[in-house]
């Protein structure tokens, strides 16, 4: 048998040296309140200070009380370029108050960010006190918490165009009393919600406490007889065109 050496494609690492890369993390301190949708972002910035392109890694770690949506950032950096990557930091409902460190490292560099965890105030809106927020589906740019973070810019949208119904749900660890649900959606011209039911969980089933039909407004308040419940959901039935999606900017329960 003739011996012909196979050509191996695996190569030595491409520019592995981390030294040309500068690591920075903002902010220097991060206060968060417990709850899935009360997360805040750390910005991990990797800067290539050399004249050559490099691949760089940043590793993140935290104690179990904190949840990091990602623990690694790897990216190509052209000379002089800075890549800023947001990393979501959260603490589950019930996490004891205190300060924990998120450690970010790249090559020989290390940055520790103190994260101060507190529970939401008892006077805080019920949405921000929800222990779990879920939805039938979502998109990366319109995540579930987009409708439960108090941010008037972010929103939740489902990922199943033209398929109905969809739902968006808030759960609490303890019973709350609800008598009003405000749904902020988009104006009809921007594809806001048209039809939906407001439901509360009671007696082992979803009970519809309000129904909205033919809506074109960006904000709708639904009031109903006060109910003690541990879950509220918006069951969406139709939208106003534009891909025929469910779009909710915020759900407020009171």
């Amino acid at each position, binding site marked *: 048998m003739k011996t012909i050496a196979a050509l191996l494609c695996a190569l030595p690492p491409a520019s592995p040296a981390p030294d040309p890369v500068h690591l920075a993390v903002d902010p220097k301190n991060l206060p968060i309140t417990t709850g899935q949708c009360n997360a805040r972002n750390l910005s991990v910035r990797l800067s290539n200070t050399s004249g050559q392109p490099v691949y760089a890694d940043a590793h993140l770690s935290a104690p179990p009380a904190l949840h990091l*949506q990602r623990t690694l950032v790897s990216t190509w950096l052209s000379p002089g*370029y800075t*890549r800023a990557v947001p990393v979501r930091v959260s603490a589950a409902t019930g996490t004891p108050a205190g300060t924990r460190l998120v450690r970010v490292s790249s090559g020989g560099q290390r940055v520790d960010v103190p994260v101060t965890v507190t529970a939401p105030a008892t006077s805080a809106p019920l949405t921000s006190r929800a222990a779990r927020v879920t939805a039938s589906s979502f998109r990366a740019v319109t995540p579930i918490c987009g409708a439960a973070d108090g941010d008037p810019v972010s929103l939740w949208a489902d990922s199943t165009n033209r398929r109905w119904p969809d739902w968006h749900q808030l759960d609490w660890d303890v019973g709350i009393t609800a008598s009003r649900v405000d749904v902020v959606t988009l104006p009809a011209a921007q594809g806001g919600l048209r039809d939906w039911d407001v439901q509360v969980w009671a007696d082992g089933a979803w009970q519809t406490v309000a129904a909205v039909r033919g809506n074109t407004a960006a904000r709708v308040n639904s009031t109903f007889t006060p109910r003690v419940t541990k879950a509220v959901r918006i069951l969406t039935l139709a939208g106003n065109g534009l891909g025929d999606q469910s779009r909710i900017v915020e759900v407020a329960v009171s």
Partner: protein
Amino acid sequence: MVNRRGLLTMGGAALTAALTPVPAKAAPGPRADPFTLGVASGDPLPEGVVIWTRLAPRPFEPAAGLPSADFPVKWQVAEDERFGRVVRDGTATAAAAYGHSVHVDVRGLRPGRDYFYRFRAGRHVSPVGRTRTAPGKAAQPSKLRFAIASCQSFTDGWYTAHRHLAAEDLDVLFFLGDYIYEGAVDAVGGDRHDASLRLPDTFELLTDTLDLYRMRYALYRTDPDLQAAHAAFPWALTWDDHEVQDNYAAGVPRFDAPPADFEAHRANAYRAYWENQPLRRPRQPAGPDMALHRRLRFGDLADAYVLDTRQYRADQACGDGVRAGCAQRDEPGRTLLGPVQREWLLHGMKHSGARWNLLAQQVMMAECRYGGEAGRLDMDKWDGYPADRTAILESAARIPGTVVLTGDIHFNYAADLRADFSRPDTAPVAVELVGTSITSSGDGADVIPKLEEQRRHSPHLRFTNGQRGYVRCELTRDTLRADFRVLSHVTRPGSPIITRASFISERARPGLVPV
């Protein structure tokens, strides 16, 4: 030198002892099974093929659960499935810098032959893959069997089509893009509703950095049906847009972003693509650039031009989308292929000498009128770049045997290609097979009103269908046969497959005729 031919027939303990010394900077083999992503082969030549694997003991974790160390990986190529006749072997490096991927450009094989291959890392042995070399350069094959597949959004359903593909007897599979999708994947894999998956919320992020792309490829490649199709025959792959971002055009992202950010985004995406596909070393990207277009030859029967219609294109005309009366699409200098690739293709077609020229590419070349407002055309397709299309079809008019193979739009089409689509009375100069998706867009339906409307406005569209599946083809010296293979559903596993329609086109007289 260890006699590796007998290596894998030894007992485990003896085998471990017989491993070649570990390089100074390399780690010993991983403890858990690292072959969770299967094996693959690609880009067959008469004398060789690329074999691929990637070590990933915990595929849903960053870095797939491996430390930042390199691992030696032994490989073997044999003439028989039991590896009694090993003809080539060696040791490659699964480098951390390359996501622990392994690409071996195996040479010294015989043309037109089946081979079997496998890898070993520490005490773990990979699944066995089967591959097939291309016929010799001077060979005159009587036939070539291939299939086209594309668009396999993980969240849209199960890869049943790949399970059926794996049972086909193919010389090569052309995968025409959208191997991964960049959007969020929830814990149960979207419409798969697979509670056993339990994906971490890292998968909810848009892919834009190298670590996220590596994780995304790992997720897709854990699918056993996809692994079976990769292990059954060599693939020749190209990408479309979702390997980077929906409808990007060269350096222009779909959404506003600083150019430097998108340059890094593209570099990360291209790097992960090379790492995760059976591609040769010269295809490896340099930052945000990666030359993917190439020619594969199958004796004198067919030359396959694997094209890239994303990296070099002008931005979509008139703001993209389906437009009527867009004069910008006709502006001089607008190109889908880029001038270098276009000239390479036209020169290759002209001087090919093969009986057939296959153009394995992404977006629909046939004119496709959407109805409604008169003359609406999709600016992302060749309809948005008519100058390049005209150049190719004018060449095809002079060179018999041009077949365009297409993916992208999640529908099946069989199309006759004319130099002037407004002249249905003229003879076709080539044919196009647009293959539907593996999963993207979900279950689908046989009859889609939009497609019926398109057929009314575009008489050269001979067939349309909106189900999932692939197109199986057989080339002989004088005819092309295409079988459109479709599934009844993908949101549940286990769909049977049927041949929904079959067509034949003659090399000397192009035009798709139902069988």
